[in-house]
C-alpha cells in the first residue's frame, strides 16, 4: 500500500492490515500505467506496472520522496520502459531500461536522489522476438545522416529497403557516433557484375556495406544483424546487401565482422559517403532483448 501517516489511537481495518502485510512481503497491488508516467509522492511504497507496446519512461523528480522510500517498477509491455531522472538524480550499476517482464526498484537515499536496483532478468540468451524500434521505419529523404537513438537491446537487425542515393555513392553505418577505427570486417563483393572477390577491412572508421550503381533511381537493399549489443565486448555481425543495378558500379556484398566499441550500443547512424542526401527508401531498426 502507499506510504501512510498513522496517528495515535488509529484503528486499522482488516483491509489495511492485509495490504500492509502484502507490502511487507514485497508484494501488494500495483498501479497500472499504459503510457509514460511521472512519479508522485503517493507512489512511495507501491509498485508501478507499465504496459505499452511503445517505449515509455518513468520520470523521477525531487522533493516527493524521503530517504528510505521505495518504488517498484515492473514492465509488462513490449516497449522498453526507461527510468528517467527528471529533477532528481537516479544512479544505477546496471541499465535504467527495462525490457518486457523486467523489473527494478527505486531506493531513495534522499529527497533528491535514488538508486535504481534492477532485478535479475534473463541473461545470455535472446528471449524476445525482434521488435521494430523506430516505429514505422525511418523514411530516407531530406538528410545525409539518419540516426536512431534510445536503443537498449541485446541484438539488432537493420534493414535498409530501396534506399536511393547519388550515382556511385556508398552506404555506411556507425554506432554511438563512434568514428574511430573500431570496425573490422571481411567478406566478398561483386562489382560491375563480375565474380565475387574476397576483401578485408581491418580497423576502419565505419562499416561500408553497399555501393550504388550509376542511376540515382536504383534500389539498394541490405540486411545487417548484430549481437551482444548491450554488452561491453565486441559486437559481431553478418550482412548481405545488393544494388538493383549490379552491371555498372553497383556492388553486392556478403560480410561478417565486428564493431569493437566497448560501450553498449545506444544509437546507430546510417549515412552516405558523399554527404549528399538520400532521396528515397526506408530504414528499419529491429531489436531483441
Amino acid at each position, binding site marked *: 500500500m502507499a506510504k501512510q501517516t498513522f496517528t495515535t489511537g488509529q484503528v486499522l481495518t482488516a483491509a489495511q492490515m492485509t495490504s500492509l502485510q502484502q507490502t511487507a512481503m514485497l508484494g501488494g497491488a500495483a498501479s497500472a500505467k499504459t503510457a509514460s508516467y511521472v512519479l508522485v509522492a503517493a507512489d512511495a511504497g507501491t509498485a508501478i506496472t507499465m504496459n505499452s507496446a*511503445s*517505449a515509455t*519512461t518513468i520520470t523521477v523528480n525531487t522533493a516527493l520522496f524521503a530517504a528510505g522510500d521505495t518504488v517498484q517498477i515492473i514492465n509488462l509491455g513490449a516497449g*522498453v520502459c*526507461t527510468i528517467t531522472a527528471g529533477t532528481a538524480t537516479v544512479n544505477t550499476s546496471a541499465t535504467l531500461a527495462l525490457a518486457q517482464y523486467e523489473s527494478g526498484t527505486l531506493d531513495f537515499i534522499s529527497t533528491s536522489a535514488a538508486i535504481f536496483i534492477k532485478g535479475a532478468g534473463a541473461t545470455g540468451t535472446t528471449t524476445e522476438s525482434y521488435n521494430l*524500434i*523506430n*516505429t514505422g521505419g*525511418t523514411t530516407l529523404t*531530406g*538528410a*545525409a*545522416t*539518419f*540516426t*536512431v*537513438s*534510445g*536503443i537498449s537491446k541485446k541484438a539488432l537487425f537493420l534493414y535498409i529497403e530501396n534506399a536511393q542515393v*547519388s*550515382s*556511385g*555513392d*556508398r552506404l555506411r553505418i556507425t554506432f554511438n557516433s563512434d*568514428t574511430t577505427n573500431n570496425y573490422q570486417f571481411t567478406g566478398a563483393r561483386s562489382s560491375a557484375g563480375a565474380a565475387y572477390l574476397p576483401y578485408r577491412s581491418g580497423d576502419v*572508421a565505419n562499416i561500408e556495406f553497399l555501393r550504388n550503381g550509376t542511376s540515382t533511381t536504383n534500389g539498394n537493399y541490405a540486411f545487417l544483424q548484430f549481437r551482444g549489443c548491450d554488452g561491453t565486448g565486441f559486437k559481431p555481425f553478418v550482412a548481405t546487401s545488393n544494388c538493383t543495378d549490379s552491371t555498372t*558500379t553497383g556492388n553486392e556484398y556478403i560480410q561478417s565482422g565486428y564493431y569493437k566499441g566497448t560501450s553498449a550500443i545506444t544509437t546507430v547512424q546510417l549515412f552516405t*559517403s*558523399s*554527404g*549528399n*542526401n538520400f532521396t528515397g527508401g526506408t530504414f528499419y*531498426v529491429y531489436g531483441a532483448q
Partner: protein
Amino acid sequence: MYMEHNNMKITSKEFNAITGEETITERDETAAEAKSRLDFVKELASEQAQAQAKAAAKAALLKKLGITEAESELLLA
C-alpha cells in the same frame, strides 16, 4: 550537386526510440566527412574518365575493323 569547397552542410535526422521524437539538424561537415566526400568525387571522376576512354577505344577499334557494335557482339557470342 557535389560541392568541393569546405564547410558543406550535412543534414541529419534523428529518431529517438524512447520519446518517439524526430529532430532535424544541419551542421558543418567534419574533416573526416569532407575527406570522404572529396574521395568520392575523385573516385567518381576517375571512373567516368575510364569509362569514356574505354568507350572511345572501343569505337576506334570498331571503326578500324569496319564493323558495328552489334556485329562485334555476334563475333564474341
